[in-house]
C-alpha cells in the first residue's frame, strides 16, 4: 500500500495564537500574534512596547551627562557600545575631538561589546535550535569578558563608561596584558564552535534556506548590521563613515550570499574573528596620553583639585547642576553597533539638555523584517528567524 504524505498546512480553520511576550525564544518581551494554518504561519503581527521606558522624553529633562546611564539600558548586551555612540553624537554637536588614547579605548570597548553581544546571540540561537552545548561554551567566554568589563568600568552591565570629551577612567594597570592573553586564545574557541555547528546536519537543515531576507527587501525596510550584510550588501559604518580611528585599522567586512539564517550565522561568526583582528591592532598600538579633552567647561575637574581650588569647584558645580552650554543646532551621528546602525539625533536649542533626542536603534528597524520573513514559514523556523535577526527589546522599545 502506498502511503501519502500529508501537507504541512492543515487546510482547515486558521488558528490565532500568541507567541510571547514571555517566551524563551523571543529573547525578551516580544509578542508575536500568529495566524496559523497547521504548522505554517499565515500572518505574523508583532506587538512591541513592553519595555518602553520613555528614554527620549527623559533625555529632554536630563543634562547631556546625566543621559549616559540611560544608554546602558538600550542594547543591554552591549552597553559600552551604546555609551560610545551617544557621547560621539554629543561631541559632534560640541564640535570637539577626543584625544587618541580615548578613541583607541573606545574602539576596544566597541569591539569587546561586539564579541560579547555575538556570544550571547550564538549561545541562545543554538539553544533555540536544540544545541545546548554551544550555549555553555559561549557563556563561559562571555563571563570572562564581563570580568574584563568589570575591571575596566567597575560594573558588569550598566557601564556608563564614556564621558562627553573622553572616558570616565583610564585602563587599569595590567589590563592590556590580561586582555591580550584572552584575545590570543579566543579564535580557537570560535573554531571549536564552528566544528560543532557549521557542518552539523541538524544545524544546517534548521538554518539553510530558512528565513531568506532578499537584499532589496532588506534595503527597503532599512535593515542594517549583520542582517543586511548577510543579504549581500558590503556596508559597515566602520568602513563607510569611519569614526574613532577605524580608518587606521585593518579588517574586513564579511558578506553573505543568500541572506538566510545560516548566512546571518556565518557573518556574525566571522565578525567576531575580525573583531579579534581589530583588538590585536588596538592593543599593539595603544597610544599614551590623556583620556579627556582639556576643557574645564565640558569635563569634570579631578576631585582633589575641586577640594582645593575655587575655580575648579565652580566648574564642577556648573557642570553638575547645569551642564555645559551646547550650541544651537542639530546633529545625527551613528556607529556600527553589534546589531547595526545605532544613531543619535540631537536637536539643541542651547543649554544643558537636548530639545529633542531621537534614538535610531537597529533592533527596532531590523525587527520589522520579521513580518515578511515569518509569512509562509513553519512555527519552528520562526524561532530560528527571531534568533537570527538578534533583536534586543531594550533597544526596540527604548
Amino acid at each position, binding site marked *: 500500500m502506498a502511503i501519502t504524505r500529508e501537507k504541512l498546512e492543515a487546510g482547515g480553520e486558521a488558528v490565532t495564537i500568541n507567541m510571547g511576550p514571555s517566551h524563551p525564544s523571543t529573547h525578551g518581551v516580544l509578542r508575536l500574534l500568529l495566524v496559523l494554518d497547521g504548522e505554517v504561519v499565515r500572518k505574523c503581527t508583532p506587538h512591541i512596547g513592553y519595555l518602553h521606558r520613555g528614554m527620549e522624553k527623559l533625555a529632554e529633562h536630563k543634562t547631556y551627562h546625566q543621559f549616559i546611564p540611560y544608554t546602558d539600558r538600550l542594547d543591554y548586551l552591549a552597553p559600552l557600545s551604546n555609551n560610545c555612540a551617544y557621547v560621539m553624537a554629543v561631541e559632534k*554637536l560640541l564640535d*570637539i575631538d577626543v584625544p587618541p588614547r580615548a578613541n583607541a579605548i573606545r574602539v576596544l570597548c566597541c569591539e569587546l561589546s561586539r564579541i560579547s553581544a555575538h556570544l550571547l546571540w550564538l549561545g541562545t540561537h543554538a539553544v533555540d535550535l536544540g544545541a545546548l552545548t554551544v550555549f555553555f561554551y559561549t557563556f563561559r567566554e562571555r563571563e570572562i569578558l564581563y570580568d574584563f568589563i568589570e575591571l575596566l568600568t567597575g560594573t558588569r552591565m550598566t557601564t556608563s563608561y564614556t564621558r562627553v570629551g573622553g572616558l570616565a577612567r583610564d585602563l587599569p594597570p595590567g589590563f592590556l596584558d590580561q586582555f591580550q592573553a584572552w584575545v590570543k586564545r579566543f579564535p580557537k574557541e570560535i573554531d571549536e564552535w564552528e566544528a560543532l555547528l557549521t557542518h552539523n546536519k541538524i544545524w544546517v537543515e534548521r538554518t539553510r534556506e530558512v528565513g531568506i531576507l532578499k537584499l532589496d527587501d532588506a534595503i*527597503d525596510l*532599512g535593515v542594517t548590521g549583520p542582517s543586511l550584510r548577510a543579504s549581500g550588501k558590503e*556596508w559597515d559604518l566602520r568602513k563607510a563613515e569611519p569614526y574613532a580611528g577605524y580608518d587606521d585599522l585593518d579588517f574586513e567586512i564579511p558578506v553573505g550570499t543568500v541572506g538566510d539564517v545560516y548566512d546571518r550565522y556565518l557573518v556574525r561568526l566571522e565578525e567576531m574573528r575580525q573583531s579579534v583582528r581589530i583588538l590585536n591592532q588596538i592593543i599593539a598600538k595603544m597610544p599614551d596620553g590623556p583620556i579627556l579633552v*582639556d576643557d574645564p567647561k565640558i569635563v569634570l575637574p579631578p576631585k582633589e583639585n575641586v577640594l582645593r581650588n575655587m575655580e575648579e569647584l565652580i566648574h564642577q558645580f556648573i557642570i553638575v547642576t547645569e551642564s555645559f552650554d551646547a550650541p544651537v543646532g*542639530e546633529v*545625527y551621528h551613528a556607529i556600527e553597533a553589534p546589531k547595526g546602525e545605532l544613531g543619535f539625533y540631537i536637536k539643541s536649542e542651547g543649554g544643558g539638555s537636548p530639545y529633542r533626542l*531621537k534614538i535610531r536603534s537597529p533592533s527596532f*528597524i531590523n525587527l520589522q523584517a520579521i513580518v515578511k520573513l515569518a509569512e509562509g514559514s513553519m512555527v519552528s523556523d520562526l524561532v530560528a528567524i527571531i534568533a537570527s535577526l538578534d533583536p534586543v527589546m531594550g533597544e526596540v522599545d527604548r
Partner: protein
Amino acid sequence: MTAPKSTRWEKPGDASVRAAQALKARFGDAVIETAVFRGEVTVLVQPARIVEICNFLKLDPDHSFEMLIDLTGIHFLDRDWEYELLYHLYSFRSNARLRVKTRLAETNRIATVTGVWRGADWQEREAFDLVGVVFDGHPDLRRILMPEDFEFHPLRRDFPLEGHGA
C-alpha cells in the same frame, strides 16, 4: 583651556550638497531652504510635496537615497509651526546622507512615505504614537510603543514628564 574645534565636520559631503541643489532645481518653491551644520545637509521642504520629493530622492539614479535610516517628529509649542518631521536618508551609491525636514502648522496630518520605503511603516507608527502626527494613507496606523488605550502623545511638549497619573 578650551578644546580646539574639530576639523572633521567642516565640509558637507559633495553628494549631499548636489542632492540639495537638484531638489531646489526640480521642485523650486517647494524647497524652502538648505542648511548645513557640522557637515550635515538639511533641506526644508513643503509638507504637501513630501512624497514626490522622497520618491525623487530615492529613484533618481544620480542620488538614489535607497535607505530611510530614520523618520521622526518633534512637537513645538511656541513656534509658527507645531510639528517638524525629519527624514534621515542614506545613499549607498554616493555614501551620502541627507536630512529632509518639513514643518506642519495648524494641522497634524501629512502623507505617508510607506509607498516610497516600506521601512517607514513602524517609524511612522512611532511618530504617530509618541508625537501625534497622523500619516494619511498609512496602511496600519496604530500605536506601537504605548498601550492601545493610551490617550496622550508623550513626546509632546505639554505632556508632563511624570505623566498624567496612574
